[in-house]
């Protein structure tokens, strides 16, 4: 009965199999399970932290992390990095013990990744911040500008348009974080939330201050400039959204299999033929549109800094793709077609 229950749990099915199937005799291997011995050593001090014996050969790294967490409650599994080599990469949670190149006594080096925080929390805080901060400047809350301008409204329609675009961009990102994004790592180091939030919030405040300033100067080429810029902005927002949907559809829920993204029927995804990370390309395009729309130097600054960061990320992802897939299309560039 026990083996039946285990089998049902493993396949995630309800235990409502009608006729009990005649169970084949358990394979001879089950009678001679070779239990592993696992030793966990601190990677820096080389001190032995834990010795586990009678570990199932089919247990995963995650199981071992859970056992380690039991004896060392301050290190929850998300902040543990177990490695075969102190200078190597952390082993994946789903790696099975018996498939690793270790003898029956496995020795893992433990590395503390530091306090961790869920990626969703970080993404949401870094998006809600700019959304609210910009609105504070838009509505000219007190203590920002001279008192006579408190709660006043700008007389330039481009300022209202900019507020709508900026807010739309961050609302879209919040919705994507909640419903669309699928990130492989569950957590990131805690200090990332401070780093990321400072970056987004400070830049948002800096941009919003000038765009919503009573002495704001509208773009030099007037209506033409604003209209062109808005079209670019919206085009790139739709593009970015299409890419995010495409990337989501690549991954089945729960599966960790990586696949190469390809152009789909949606014309906005055709850029996959030339670029590995078109979501960053479209993001850059959106901010360039926003810069032209507002003709504001701080926005240009933000666009440039963002471009540098996204290029670094895109090149990293591009490198990973090429390492992972032998047949990765060679025509693709990381972020800008043929250039970067």
């Amino acid at each position, binding site marked *: 009965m026990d083996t039946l229950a285990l089998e049902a749990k493993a396949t995630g099915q309800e235990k409502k199999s009608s006729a009990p199937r005649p169970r084949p005799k358990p394979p001879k291997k089950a009678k001679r399970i070779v239990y592993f011995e696992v030793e966990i050593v601190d990677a*820096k001090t080389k001190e032995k932290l834990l010795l586990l014996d009678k570990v199932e050969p089919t247990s995963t790294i995650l199981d071992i992390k859970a056992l380690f967490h039991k004896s060392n409650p301050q290190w929850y599994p998300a902040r543990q990095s177990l490695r075969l080599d102190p200078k190597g990469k952390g082993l994946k949670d789903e790696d099975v013990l018996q498939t690793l190149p270790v003898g029956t006594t496995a020795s893992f080096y433990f590395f503390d990744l530091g306090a961790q925080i869920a990626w969703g929390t970080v993404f949401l805080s870094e998006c809600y911040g700019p959304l609210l901060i910009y609105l504070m400047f838009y509505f000219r809350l007190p203590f920002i500008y001279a008192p006579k301008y408190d709660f006043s409204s700008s007389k330039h329609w481009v300022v209202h348009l900019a507020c709508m675009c900026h807010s739309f961009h961050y609302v879209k990102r919040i919705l994507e974080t909640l419903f669309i994004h699928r990130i492989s790592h569950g957590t990131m180091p805690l200090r990332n939330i401070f780093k990321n939030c400072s970056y987004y919030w400070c830049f948002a405040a800096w941009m919003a201050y*000038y765009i919503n300033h009573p002495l*704001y100067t509208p773009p030099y080429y007037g209506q033409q400039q604003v209209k062109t810029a808005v079209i670019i902005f919206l085009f790139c927002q739709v593009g970015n959204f299409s890419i995010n949907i495409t990337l989501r559809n690549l991954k089945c829920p729960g599966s960790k299999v990586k696949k190469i993204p390809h152009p789909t029927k949606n014309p906005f995804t055709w850029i996959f033929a030339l670029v590995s990370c078109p979501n960053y390309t479209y993001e850059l395009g959106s901010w360039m549109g926003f810069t032209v729309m507002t003709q504001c130097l701080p926005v240009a600054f933000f666009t440039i800094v963002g471009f540098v960061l996204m290029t670094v990320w895109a090149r990293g992802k591009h490198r990973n793709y090429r390492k992972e897939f032998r047949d990765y299309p060679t025509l693709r560039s990381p972020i800008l077609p043929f250039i970067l």
Partner: protein
Amino acid sequence: MASTEEDGSVEEKENNNKKRTKSAIAVAWLTFYNIAMTAGWLVLAIAMMRFYIQKGTHKGLYKSIARTLKFFQTIALVEVVHCAIGIVRTSVIVTGVQVCSRIFMVWFITNSIKQIQNEESVILFLAVWTFTEITRYSFYTFNLLNHLPYFIKWARYNMFIIMYPLGVAGELLTIYTALPYVRKTGMLSVRLPNKYNVSFDYYYFLVIVMLSYIPLFPQLYFHMLRQRRKVLLGEIIVEKDE
């Protein structure tokens, strides 16, 4: 640390070895550079002392050495390149911050704000800089020639303990004295409205620079203290992994 094959100087990096086998060209260039800089700062020191002995006052001293100072301090930018290409084993950021703060003081404070050039605080930091740089460059020179006299090593890793705070005091006092003149002339500032929708107030920028000494100075100071413990006392310091 980034290390590329640039300028034809190919390096053999032994990853498990602390000492890198530098190419002969790199060693020759560094030796030349450090000797030149030692000489330059010695010239500055002697010029300053001569002026003071001859004139008996520090007024006009800055003006007499301004060109030499600007030249040798600006050339120090090359040290950031040394770190970037890997022929010097220091962090690019630490060197970058140090050199930039020097360049900033020379070009954007004492050079631009003529009224503060005769202040005592200027002489203070100039004296500190001269002493520190002579010690530092001669240390590097002798190190490269593998013939380091102990007193230079001692000076490099001990004098900074008082020199660094004194130098910072001189710099901060100079910036503080310069503030009213910046306010009055509105130099290097941009005000609204303008067609790029940006503003920059040099006065508040200087205030922020002064405040930034509070987190930055201890970091550099403790970095030097750690180096001192490693070099003079032979302590092995377990670096905190990022």
